[in-house]
């Protein structure tokens, strides 16, 4: 007979013991298992073209343009509609991507290796702000930026990371949580640490001063530059805890802009999905919730691993997304302790007397208490190509937890 608490202890311990190191950057097709030219990875649970939301469609079109598989938007759509393109969740290939998360075979990706358990995880490079592929933009400037990232930034980062011997992302997060980051919506401090750690190696390996300068500027200006390695690190942690018999711990939460999907450690690779909700948040000038796309992105892997909204108390500067006061930020984290299995042994919160962050969502507790996980998130425009319109808070639909509980009862013959 399976002991659920013991299984969960094991799962959460594995997740916390995982030590993901950023090991390099390489083209997706060279490193991501199963990657091939006509395959596009996307955020969230599986979805077919017909049900894809605006930003995801836009990112798909952009990726096909970037890969040279299509020359125009129309060509790209026709190619997809003919069934020439395969789609798969990033999560099915040990990969995660923010927002649309679309990753194609030529794209440079970060390689994270969990030194404790040996598994790897991948994520694309962060494009920065403005019109970007991850929000479904695919204009020429977007594609040009991607090209530059692939041809200039990626190779330089690859060399620099290799020269550095690897960057311990878990240690970086431990530090940035003490500097006002929560690791999901706010990665300001983490991105600065990341840039500072890489800068000497970039300087050392760069052949061209102009490229060096551009890359350092891109890293330093972008408060999200570390988000992608952080997400891949969280994926490596969560993946190490997946597949533990009897465990009710969540190991994946991800959204594709249409559905919110979840997987549970002890329930194999089955996804539990329900329609994604529109985040509640603050909007950029001239946008309102009417413009918002339903929740999208793999970045919920941060909450899955015990940071992001779960570490909200550590990030009082962005509490206004929640509703306003530092007390609310504390409350957000305190609430998440109710539905988690452990307090993180490496991620601590100064504001809570260095208590570990709430870690390891237990579907039992979510259903019993009626508290769904909190997620901090960016908000995408519902139309392809417009980009980010705000940021805020969202929760997964309760239904996926209820469905998972019922599936667990069936699986384990309760």
């Amino acid at each position, binding site marked *: *007979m*399976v*002991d*659920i*608490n*013991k299984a969960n202890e094991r799962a959460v311990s594995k997740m916390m013991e995982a030590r993901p190191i950023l090991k390099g950057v390489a083209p997706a097709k060279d490193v991501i298992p199963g990657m091939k030219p006509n395959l596009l990875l996307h955020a969230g649970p599986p979805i077919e073209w017909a049900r894809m939301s605006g930003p995801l469609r836009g990112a798909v079109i952009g990726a096909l343009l970037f890969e040279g598989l299509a020359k125009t938007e129309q060509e790209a759509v026709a190619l997809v509609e003919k069934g020439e393109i395969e789609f798969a969740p990033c999560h099915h290939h040990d990969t995660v991507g923010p927002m649309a998360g679309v990753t194609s075979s030529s794209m440079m990706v970060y390689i994270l290796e969990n030194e404790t358990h040996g598994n790897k995880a991948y994520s694309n490079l962060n494009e920065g*702000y*403005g019109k970007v592929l991850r929000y479904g933009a695919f204009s020429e400037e977007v594609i040009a930026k991607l090209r530059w990232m692939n041809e200039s930034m990626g190779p330089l980062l690859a060399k620099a990371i290799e020269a550095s011997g690897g960057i311990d992302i878990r240690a970086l997060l431990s530090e940035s949580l003490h500097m006002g980051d929560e690791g999901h919506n706010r990665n300001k401090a983490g991105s600065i640490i990341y840039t500072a750690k890489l800068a000497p190696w970039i300087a050392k390996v760069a052949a061209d001063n102009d490229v060096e300068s551009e890359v350092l500027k891109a890293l330093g200006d972008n408060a999200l530059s570390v988000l992608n390695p952080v997400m891949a690190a969280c994926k490596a942690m969560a993946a190490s805890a997946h597949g533990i018999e*009897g465990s*009710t711990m969540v190991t994946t939460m991800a959204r594709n802009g249409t559905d919110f999907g979840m997987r549970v450690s002890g329930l194999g690779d089955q996804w539990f999905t329900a329609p994604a909700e529109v985040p509640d948040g*603050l*909007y*950029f*000038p*001239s946008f309102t919730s009417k413009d918002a796309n339903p929740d999208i992105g793999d970045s919920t892997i941060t909450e899955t691993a015990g940071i992001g909204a779960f570490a909200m108390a550590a990030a009082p*500067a*962005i509490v*206004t*997304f929640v*509703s*306003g*006061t530092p*007390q*609310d930020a*504390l*409350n957000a984290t*305190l*609430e998440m*302790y*109710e539905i988690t299995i452990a307090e993180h042994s490496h991620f601590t919160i100064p504001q809570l007397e260095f208590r570990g962050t709430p870690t390891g969502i237990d579907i*039992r*507790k979510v*259903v*019993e*208490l*009626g*508290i769904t996980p909190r997620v901090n998130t960016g908000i995408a425009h519902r139309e392809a190509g417009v980009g980010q319109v*705000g*940021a805020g808070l969202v929760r997964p639909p309760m239904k996926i937890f*209820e469905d998972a*509980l*019922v599936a*667990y*009862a069936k699986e*384990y013959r*309760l």
Partner: protein
Amino acid sequence: MSVTKSEVRPGVYYDSVVLMQLQRKLAALPGVEDAGVVMATPANLELLADSDLLEAAGKAARPEDLLIVVRAGNEAEASSALAQVDELLKQRSSGGGNQAFRPRSLAAGIKNLPAAEWVLISVPGRYAAKVAHEALDNGKHVFLYSDNVELEDEIALKQRGAALGLLVMGPDCGTAIINGVGLGFANRVRRGPIGLVGASGTGLQAVTVGIHNYGGGVSQAIGTGGRDLKAEVGAASMLQGLRYLAADEATQVIVLISKPPDEATAARLLSEAQTADKPVVVCFIGFAAPAEQIGNVHFAQGLDSAARIAVGLSNGAITPPAIERRAGYLRGLFSGGTLAYEALNGLQNFLHPIYSNVAIRSSQKMADPLHSQAHTIIDLGEDVFTVGRLHPMMDNDLRLRRLKQEVEDSETGLILLDVVLGEGSHADPAGELAAAIASHRKTRADIEFVALVVGTDEDPQNTEEQIQKLEAAGARIFRETSMAVDYIAARLGAAPSAAGKALRPFSEPLAAVNVGVESFFDSLKAQGADAVQVDWRPPAGGNETLAGILEKMKGKS
């Protein structure tokens, strides 16, 4: 025609979140159609241009400048909006924003107030037992206000509580005062030396009020719930409370309050009360008290008299020293019927089970008067014994034979004999009885002999001499039935049950987690107690299927 106005604040930086908030507030002002508040980076200027918010002043702004733009119905509205920017930037959300965290689960409540030793539970009855078990799991005393809790659940909770040294007040416990803090419904009464345990909520309230009004004060008032003194529950909580107060230095007088208890339970409680080295005032409404006072146990006829007696006793009563318990059964071999009846009337409240051929309660009837069982009081003057022979007041033969029979019974611990002197009685009853006692004591030194001697100094047998003979044989002498009853009740009362640990001490100041009715939380806070409110909801939102699965899963860990 709409008017767009901008303000550029060179070199002023705000976090984007602050800017978005400001923008939302500006957009909500009267007449304002749209607003934009951004750091004037090229990307942001483009955004503003897309929404028709960019005009000359904005275009000239530099990336490190703060740009504030409003589009309003007219010039005045636009200017007014811009004039309010500084005020809006200073605004802080308030009203509920600083609300301390409200946990949803008891576990989180306890985590947030580790000092809490008490959990108050007032959730719907069908869920209450589970919450109470969880409180016990966490080592907390329980105040269980919820009603409609199954009797089996109450028994299970109280058994666990006893094993853990934790108090379970309730279910259906409305009131308690712990360390001066009222739980549930409680009156504000001064603190003092009187400790109470009550199975009746309003009874407990009335007596604490009475104590206060008579000038006394309360150390602890412990509630038990109305079913505690039922046979099935066996006064589990009242016994715990009684023992706690007996050992509590701040308590000088104990008051027990209940509706009439089950017989066996009453005997258990009263004999436990006798072991306290302080006065115990018993107020079992409707209970036929055998006397005003038996040993340290005082019987009050009503709530008010209980309060009055308790306050009187707390002002310096002398408590008879507690008598040491011994094992074995009582065998009372009487020649006088009324004496037997009076002894039974007193002792039945302490010794259980007790049997007699002059039974007061039908449960006391002997199966066979010729054979004693458990505690037994026999009137040997009854017809069944006297057919064809002299009355035992005149002829000791029958009693001597029965005496021998009792001595041969290994369960016998104490033998009570009456010795009625006077005209017509045997000329020297003590002579024959004393000789038998002396001889039996050689074989059964463990048996204690008590003699109730009824006689005057003018009686022909010479009472003094009779007493001396009995005493010389080793018997303890009493001259009144009530005194003998006091002694025997104290000597043979049920041994304190080995089951159950002493209650964990009630620390000061009182801290509690309240699960359910919020007014109890407010009341705790108003009394200065440290408290956490748990916003409890039915598991799985009341969905029976899911709750059922969760329950099964609990068995798997």
